[in-house]
């Protein structure tokens, strides 16, 4: 019942679904050792939408991204570039 998880696709879906300008979304995946960081570039108007009040949205994105990668043992981070 389980196929392989695709954390990058998950992050991309969440971010593009939350913004006004999905075409301006760029996600760079940086791997170092067993850490993976997804760096999100956005239209300036959309930064607040992806971060959310008190960071609630970006925190939730991080939680899901980490859970999806949970079984692989890698450390996952998701950051919004200013």
């Amino acid at each position, binding site marked *: *019942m389980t*196929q392989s998880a695709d954390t990058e696709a*998950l992050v991309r*879906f969440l971010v593009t679904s939350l913004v006004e300008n999905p075409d301006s979304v760029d996600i760079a995946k940086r791997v170092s050792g067993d850490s993976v960081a997804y760096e999100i570039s956005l239209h300036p108007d959309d930064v607040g939408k992806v971060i*959310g*009040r008190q960071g609630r*949205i*970006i925190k*939730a994105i991080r*939680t899901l991204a980490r859970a999806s990668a949970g079984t692989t043992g890698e450390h996952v981070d998701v950051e919004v570039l200013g």
Partner: protein
Amino acid sequence: MKRETTAEGTTVEEALDTALAELGVQQDAVQYEVVGEPGKRLFGLGSERRAQVRVWLREEFVAEISAREQEEAFSTEDSTVAEAAEGVQSPAVPRGGFPTVAPEELSDEDLDRIADEAVSSIQSVLDGFGIEATIEEYEGDEGEIILDIVGGDLGLLIGRHGRTLDALQVLVAAITNRRLGFRYPVLVDVEGYRNRRRVKLEEIGQRAADRAVRQNGPVKLRPMSALERRVVHVALREDQRVVTASEGEEPFRSVVVSPRRG
């Protein structure tokens, strides 16, 4: 926006990440101090002690942050059913700029459309997790749409203390609101977890009420999410012996049950 916060994690780095997420800034915008080092409990019993950090914004970033705050005032905001229902926010200006729509204002077709949007976003998340599951639709007591994800070993979607499920709730609500252009209560569940959890929380609330009466003093519960706190508030609403309130800052906000005076 908050200018200071404390956060926990299994490592200092993770606690810092959480704090930065909460403040919505990058690390170069803050200064921090380690309040608690991670480590094992005495005698190796119990769970590991978590790292705790206090993080605050650098002066020079405060101005920049207030600009961002203005921007956010007009941005999409997550709406969990819980927060709307906790009734702390003034309804005069809807949060996130999306008007809230009451169940009775909508036709069956509208409700189908809302459910379809929410189901499709949940489905995309499940795809990202590589999980095949079924999404069952229910209507809740107050007209809310309940979407229960079922079909096997789904503990991964619930997470510790339901944290992953809470994140899923926040994002599905935000995405659904954004696609619809209005806010409607949609509750995401996994294998009926919220229901089971609710029964347990109601018991916790009852026990706290009994203790508050017996001790004739306030009883503070462990920190809970907004949804969990709401369950406790509602469970004790009819209990004439006690009053309930929420105290503290997220994510350590908790319910306090006190004996009713007079």
